């Protein structure tokens, strides 16, 4: 059983211990200990190549770490049926937008009626309704990213990993997506881990912010503290200047 809790809550949180990943002599990830709160939104920020996507890929079980453990609710297995992820380079099944959004529901044997209603609601929320019948070839990148998000939200995952989900999405839609994520957190208690380069977005969404640099956690703390009075000088430098809203 893991020892170091940084939080008073104890539930289905994600606990990372001594996670290490290297390519040859180049260590791209080396996390001593990190806890992602249950039912909260954690934003991971950091410069390009910091290892953010690597971390998410390992957590989602898409990549093996060289060393270290990840516990979810005390167990070493993350139930992949209850987890989902939106890739940094989103990727759709070559079919229609509708079939993409419905796919995780079909896999889970939802009824046709249920599928239809969920797909309709999500599409409406994300402004995809007019695209439902369209094949994925030829969608704009923003439309692709929205479809991938809708697909991830179609069933109700306990754990949601998002790798820069709004990178190609227009500002208004971004705000709407943030609303949806906050609602998920509030209503379903979904645990969300989101990578973003948009510090303002991290500020709007996150309960906890993690700054990753060169594979190491520089600072991981509550959002309020992270942006206003972080412990580390490096954090201040990263969030400082004209970048913070």
């Amino acid at each position, binding site marked *: 059983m893991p020892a170091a809790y940084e939080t008073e809550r104890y539930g289905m949180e994600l606990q990372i211990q001594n996670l290490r990943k290297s390519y040859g002599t180049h260590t791209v990830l080396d996390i001593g200990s990190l806890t992602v709160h249950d039912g909260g939104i954690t934003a991971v920020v950091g410069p390009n190549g910091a290892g953010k996507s690597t971390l998410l890929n390992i957590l989602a079980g898409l990549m093996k770490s060289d060393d270290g453990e990840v516990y979810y609710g005390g167990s070493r297995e993350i139930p992949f049926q209850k*987890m989902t992820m939106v890739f940094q380079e989103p990727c759709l*099944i070559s079919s229609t937008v509708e079939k993409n959004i419905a796919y995780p529901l079909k896999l889970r044997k939802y009824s046709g009626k249920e599928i239809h209603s969920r797909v309709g609601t999500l599409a409406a929320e994300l402004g995809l309704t007019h695209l439902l019948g369209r094949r994925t070839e*030829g969608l704009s*990148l923003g439309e692709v990213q929205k479809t991938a998000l809708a697909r991830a939200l179609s069933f109700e995952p306990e754990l949601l990993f998002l790798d820069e989900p709004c990178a190609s999405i227009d500002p208004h839609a971004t705000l709407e997506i943030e609303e949806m994520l906050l609602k998920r957190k509030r209503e379903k208690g979904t645990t969300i881990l989101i990578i973003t380069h948009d510090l303002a977005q991290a500020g709007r969404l996150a309960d906890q912010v993690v700054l990753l640099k060169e594979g190491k956690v520089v600072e991981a703390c509550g959002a309020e503290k992270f942006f206003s009075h972080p412990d580390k000088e490096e954090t201040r430098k990263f969030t400082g200047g004209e970048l913070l809203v």
Partner: protein
Amino acid sequence: MKIIMEGVAEAFRLIFSLDEEVFEVVGLSLRVSLLSLLIAGVLGIPAGIFIAGHRFRGKRLLMRLIYTLMGMPPVLCGLLVYIALMRRGPLGSLRLNYTVTAMIIVQTLLIFPIITGLTVSAARDRQGKIRRLARTLGADRRQTMQLLLFEMRFGLITAVITGFSRGISEVGAVMIVGGNIDGKTRTMTTYISQLKGMGEFERAVAVGIILLIISFTVNTILCYLQKDPGEELRGGHAGGI
């Protein structure tokens, strides 16, 4: 050229007169090549996907061996199977030489490496991405395999078509283990070969044309399975797997 024109005419005459001998031969050819294709496909596609998706020692060597077996001369393959099935050989009691079963065995052996090799090539770039996608969406093993097959259908159908082409067209192997026995193991290719030896060029060309027509029909059906949405649309294929 006259011979070829006459061959074409003869081909249509044979088709429309429902020549029984020709029909029998065509039927056997199709039975042998489709059955071997089925077996080789059911084994070779998963094998190819597996190889493409795993890293292991000797993988490159294995690939080169598979490529080499893609170029296994049918005559040699036929001969080896023939030797293995010889009556006094280890499997002799099965009495398989000069039977349709032996022909299917030998063609399966010929087609299998082709399908496996081309599947590896088709799966190489994409299967990792598809697998990861399937996993994040909660697909189990079977569902993942379904998604893989669906997303790679172009490459796979090309592999299957290439395998079928090899099977339906080759003569060396089926001739040896089948023996071109009239009414029993005579396929279109062994028949063409025999007719050629008998100097009956027109009829040989005619049977050849029938073979091509059948091949075309099978390919059309297989292509239809791809459900090609047409061209790659506009500037790239955003979010494609």
